[in-house]
Every structure is written in structure tokens, then in C-alpha cells.
């Protein structure tokens, strides 16, 4: 089981909004595939799957605010 984590977003930025999940629970993903779009007060970012596998869990939905380090999903 591998976590999808909100990475460090740069200087003076601690939170982000979930803009869009590009995959749903149960879907297969490749390592490096963009699975999630987030935006901060400063910019928009693409989050990639850290490993290949199946999305087993999604913890936040679109529009939610998340903090740096939050586990937003998991891959099995």
C-alpha cells in the first residue's frame, strides 16, 4: 500500500485545494501518471502516481482543502 501525499508546495505555501481527480477508486494507474490536479493560492499542480497499481482509496474530494503532507489517496 502506497500513499498519495500532498508534496511540499514551496515557500510560504501550506495548503492546496483538490481541483480534480483524474482517476477514480478501483482504477489501475501507471507510476508517473497524473492522477490528481490541485491548486494553491499561487499555482496549479499535477500530482503523479508514486507507483503502479490500483487506486484503493480516495480521502478527499474535489473542492476540499488539504495540507502539505496530507494523504489524499492510496494505491494498492
Amino acid at each position, binding site marked *: 500500500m502506497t500513499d498519495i501525499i500532498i508534496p511540499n508546495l514551496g*515557500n*510560504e505555501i501550506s*495548503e492546496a485545494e483538490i481541483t480534480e481527480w483524474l482517476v477514480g477508486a478501483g482504477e489501475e494507474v501507471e507510476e508517473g501518471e497524473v492522477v490528481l490536479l490541485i*491548486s494553491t*493560492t*499561487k*499555482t496549479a499542480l499535477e500530482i503523479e502516481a508514486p507507483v503502479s497499481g490500483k487506486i484503493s482509496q480516495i480521502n478527499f474530494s474535489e473542492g476540499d482543502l488539504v495540507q502539505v503532507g496530507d494523504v489524499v489517496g492510496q494505491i494498492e
Partner: protein
Amino acid sequence: MPKNIPIDPIKTFSKSVLKSSGIPVHQYQKSIQEELKIYGKENLIELLRHMYIVREFETMLNSFKTKGSYKNIEYIYNGPAHLSIGQEAAAVGSAFALKTEDKIFGSHRSHGEMIAKGLSAINSLSRNKINSIMETHHDGKLISYIHKNFNNTEFNDAEMFLLIGVLAEIFMRELGFNKGMGGSMHAFFTPFGAFPNNAIVGGSSGIAVGAALHAHLKQNKSICVANLGDGSTGCGLVWEAMNFAAMGQYKNLWPKPFNNNPPMLFCFMNNFYAMGGQTLGETMSWDRLSRIASGVNPEQLHAETVNGSDPLSVADAVIRKRKILLEGNGPALLDIECYRFSGHSTTDTNAYRSREEIKHWKSFDPIELYSQKLLDADIINKKNLDNIIEKVQNQIELLTSKVVDRELTPSIDIAKKPTIIGDFTFNKEVNRISKTADDLLMDINQVNQIKNMKKKSRYGKTSDGSLLSGMRAITLRDSLAEAIIYHLSNDKSLIAYGEECRDWGGAFGVYRGFADIIPMNRLFNAPISEAAIVSTAIGYAISGGRAIIELMYSDFIGRAGDEIFNQLAKWQAMSAGELRLPIVLRASIGSKYGAQHSQDWSSLLTHIPGLSIVYPATPYDAKGLIATSLKSNDPTIFFESQRLYDKVEVFNEKGVPEEYYTIPIGKAVKRKKGRDITILTIGASLYPALDASEELINYKIDAEVIDARSLVPFDYDMLISSVNLTGRLLIVSEAVERGSFSNTIATNISRFAFNNLKAPAIVIGAPNWIAPGADMEKTYSPQSDDILDSVFRDFFPEKRVNKKGLRKDWNFLELAKKGF
């Protein structure tokens, strides 16, 4: 980082050899008969006359400097005289090839270039146009002086206008083109296409590129020329400017019809010496100056070395380069080899060159050579030549005799108008923006980033008083974006650039989404050339445009030091208010990146007269103040704190208005009312000061907190009336204490409110050493505890409160003695 120019590793690593084509050196071969066909007899003779005028003009200056007299005129001239005796063919040949609307920018040694450009303009402008130029310049004062004093002379009044305008400027008289505020090294007269000369070696290079950018965006079919010395090839700005004019993006990425390079000519008046250092063979690495062009772009800037002792060779080259530039294929470089017989200045003893060398070059005197050429070809006869020479001498003698006369041609009476130079410094004009730009790529309201802002709360607190996240309420970053995009989309003369400003949206995201709205020719990524970023903005602005530029970190101000300190800050005053520099320079004050990325340099810039300086701390103020800055016709430095970009509005209960509004520069704002002590904050220090003021309530100390917002001008009225009430002043900022603007305010308040002060004003800033890394940063910028400690120690010692801050046990006197 445009995605449409991929960097392919296979191509990158494939084996090849970079080739450069040759650079022509002295290839000019036209005979005088061919030239006669091109120019006609009259023009060829006129060229000679212009060279004589320049020579005689400078001979006159030289004579005053060295002997205190010229002919029978006695005069002590105290200013500089960097003469170009020997270089006349370069100045006149080039001016001959240029059109009036082409702009030249010069150096400390540019009297000749400016006079030549003026003479050439006078020959090509219609009489009506010349009249209107002369009548409108300084309300016609100079032309009426000429008609009064020279009415019955044989000399053309426009020529007298030009020569007297220059000479009076050199002699610092009010009738000078810039009312004597520029002087010898800074003279100019824009209606004839002679733009500012510059006493900073290389200083004109970037300014001229900015002007070329303006000509390019206006598509007005003229070119810009930087006349530079060979010594300036050692200056960083010159290289930055060459690259800026040659950047790949114009052709690769800019939209039609702007997908060409700006029409920029780098003209090196190569006299082989830079004061006493010899460029060729000693201080520079090149064997021929023109070689530097092969380091700039594949076209090698179309560089050529040409013979600067022959005006026709120079004119020929400038005409050919001009054509290339107007076809959009610039920039170009000319290495015009010539020799100055005069010393660098009149105190030069020629310690660095031999008599033999000077003598040898005398046989290449451009005026002698060209006169002989015209005589040999029967284009002029000896008698006519002597006539020309005599007439020129009479002309210069006559006008000089009047200009030296201090009664007839006085300087501005500073004793009578003691603050007049201050009046020239700021014009305080406000620009009106009215219509939507017609070049927008997309409706603003369709752009995601803008749409997202529209969803946010305008106020930073919920109805129950809790603070909203920057994701949910308008932040300082958003409020800046709103005002800037308003201006960019309503004012086509405004351009925005800086490093990573386009696709990235600026390093701190203020411009995110803008790339979808503003075409690339008005919003682009600049090279990492801070000096050229500022310098080109100046050239763009003095040509009639407006610019908002970004320096990313204020720590990088050093890289643009001259351009901010000596150019941006000074040209309005040096032109006696003639030039306008509507430029907003955004610089952020950093955090977390250590000593070279965390300095508040607002104080540093307040030390330089000539810049408006603002530093807002709230979203409401940021939006209103950036709007005012963008409307202002004065150069404005706009500081932003990276720590504050995500701040939401908590002071103005109506939040940040969605509509456009302005806040006057020079007005402070009271954040909290109090009776016992005034705490003045600059920029981000507002927040720890407010925390401290809350804490002080527990000790029955009622602090008044004032947020400066503007540093230049500064709102002394509000501060004085506050201090008159509280009797105590503490000033908090993140700038290092020593030599800070806070200290200036403290000193002024000690004078202006002395009678009401109960204690000396105290300044808290950053300590006089480097900013440490992120984890130690709180030891550097003043924290709430540091403020509390100072309040108790310096103002209310009777309260006997335990001190908590890091500086609580510092012996400030001992530190100061040690250099801290």
C-alpha cells in the same frame, strides 16, 4: 519554458561543429564618384560642414577648459569636457545615414553625435515642423532668445537653436535643452532624435534597446542606436542589452506582426582607449571589437568593423544596417574604429600613449582626409572650403560669446527657487486609462484563475470572526493580480516582464492566468538580466510607453544597481522634468532562502532620491496602491513581502472591493488606535506589531499602530499627530537597522515632535548581519516578543515585565561599537 520549443536530447548530444561566418573588416570600397551619385554634391559638402561644426564646437570647449578663453572670449568652465576631437566622421557619418525619427543614445563623449544628429534632422525636417519644435520647446524661450540676439546674422536660426541648446546645457544655463540640469554628459533633445547621453559607461545600451522595443511594438519603422565606447564592451549591461535585443523569442514565439527583432543598432565608437586603459590588447580579450558579436547569436549581429576616419564609410555601413533592422532582422553591431586626438578629459596627460602614436593618427584626421577627398574630386574648391571654415568659426564664436554671458544667459537661480530641483524630480501626473486593449487573447472572465478568484470571499473572516484560508478568500497575491490585469487589459501601452513572468505567472504566481489573456509582446519572460530588465523599461518609458517589471527578489536589486540608482531615479530630474518614467518596479522581500534571498531593501532605495516607494501589508492596500503606481507617471518601487502573499483582508470589513480603486501614495493608515505609544510599522512588521499591541493591553498599555504603506513620500502628518498624543514612538521594520529609513523617520520625529516626546524614538529592525536560513529566520526579523521587550525596556521600564525576546539581553551600544 515554452512547451512548443522542445529540447531534444538526441539532437542535443549529436556530434557537430559550431560554425561562425566571417566578420567583415574595412570592406568599404566605394569611390567618391559613386558616393557623389548617391548623395549629390550639396550633401557631400554639407557632411564636411557638419564635421567642421562639431570640431570647432569642441575646440572651443577645449580652449575654455585649458586656457580659460576661446578667441577673445574669457570664461571659466567648471564642468566636464569629454571631447571627441578626431572622431567627427563617426558621429557625422552615422547621423547622415539616420532619419530624424531614429533615436540615438550616447555616452559621456557624445556632444558631437548629438550635434550631428541635430544638424541632420534640421536638414531633413520641413520648415514648419522645425518652427513648431522650436516654438513649443520650453514655451519658445530659446527661439525668442535667438531671434532677439541673432536676428540680423547670416546663420540659420534652427542651427543656432541646436548649438545654443547644447552649449547652454553644457554650461548649465536655464536655456539649455534640459535647463542645465543634465550638463555636458547628459544633454539631449528628443525632437531631433537625440536621446539621453549617459555618464555611466555602457548605460545607454539597455535604454536604447527599450526604445527599440517601443519602436517595434509601435511598428513605426525607425531604429534606435546606442553610441557606446569600446570600453563599454567590458560592462555587464552591454552584454545583457545585446542579448535582450537578440533573444530568440521574438522570432520564435511572438505573434505577428511582432515576430521580428527590435530595430537596435549597437554602435561602438572604438577609439581604442577607455580613459587610460587600452581596450585592444590590455583590458579586453578581443582582437577586433566586432568579434564579440560572434558570441551573441548565429547572425553575429551582422557585425562589421568600419573605418571611422571616413564619414562615407560610416554612413554606408549605417544605411545597410538600418535596412536589416527595418526588415526585422536585428540587432546589428558596428565597430567604428577611430581615434580621439583630445585627451579623455582635459586633465589627461596622455601617460598611456606615445606621442608617435598620436602623430601617426594625425595623418588620419577625418576632417583633413575628407576635405582632401572633396578637393581632389573637384566637389569643392579651396576658396569655398575656406569660406565654410570661416563661417563655421564665426558661427561658433558668435553664439559662444552670448552663451557665456551670465546676465544674458543665466543659470536657474537656485537661491531664488531653492527647491526647484525637487520640483523636477516628480511630476505627480496621473495617467488616464480609458479603453479596453484590442489585443487580448481571451476574455478575462473566461480564464480559470480569474474565475477562481471570483468565487472567493472578498473579506478574510467568516461571520463568526474566524479567519478564512487563502484558498477561500482573496489574498494579497489575488488583489495585486486584479489591479494589474485591469491595467494590462485596459492600457495597450503597458508591458509587463521579468523573469518567469509568463507561463509560470511570476515566481510567486501574481500573474498566473495572464498568459491566456495578454499577448506575448506585452507579457514576456525576460532573460536573467536584472540590469537590462530595468534599463529597457526606462528606454521603453521615455519613448512613450509604460512598463511594470519584476525583479523577483529585492535582493537582486544589486544586479540592477546602476539602472535603479542612476537611471530610473535620476532621468526625470536630469531632464528638468522633460522625460516621463512611468515604470513600476515590483520587488519581493523573501523568506526562508537565507542571506541572499531574505533582505528587506526598502531602506536602501529610500536613500536614493527620485523614486516613489511603497510597501503595502494588506490585500486592500496592495490592490489600491499598485493601481495608483500603475497610473502614476513617476517611477515607483513596489515592495511585496513573500510572507504576505497569502494574507487575506482582515482590516477593511467590506473586504477587498472587486471593482477597481486607487489609494493615494504617501498616506499611512491607522490599524489600531491608542494613547500610550505609537508603533509605526513598515511592510510585514505590521503583523507582529499588532500581536504585540494586543498583548500590551494586558499590561494596560494602549498602543497605537500605524502602517506606513508608503515610504516615499511618507505620511509625516499622521505620524506627528499620533506622536503628539502618545509622546512615544517605536518604529518596526525588517530592514537592517543601521542606516535604515526607520532611523530617518526617528530623527525627523525627534525634530518635528520634540516638544511632545517623552522618550527618544526607538528603531527595531533586523540586526546588522546576514539573514540566516529558514529555521533561524525568527531570530532575524523582529518578532512580537522583540517589540514587547523594547516597549518595556525603552518606554515603560517601571512595568518590570520579564523579557522574552531573543534580544532581551543585548547590549546595543557594545554591539554598535563592534560594527553591528
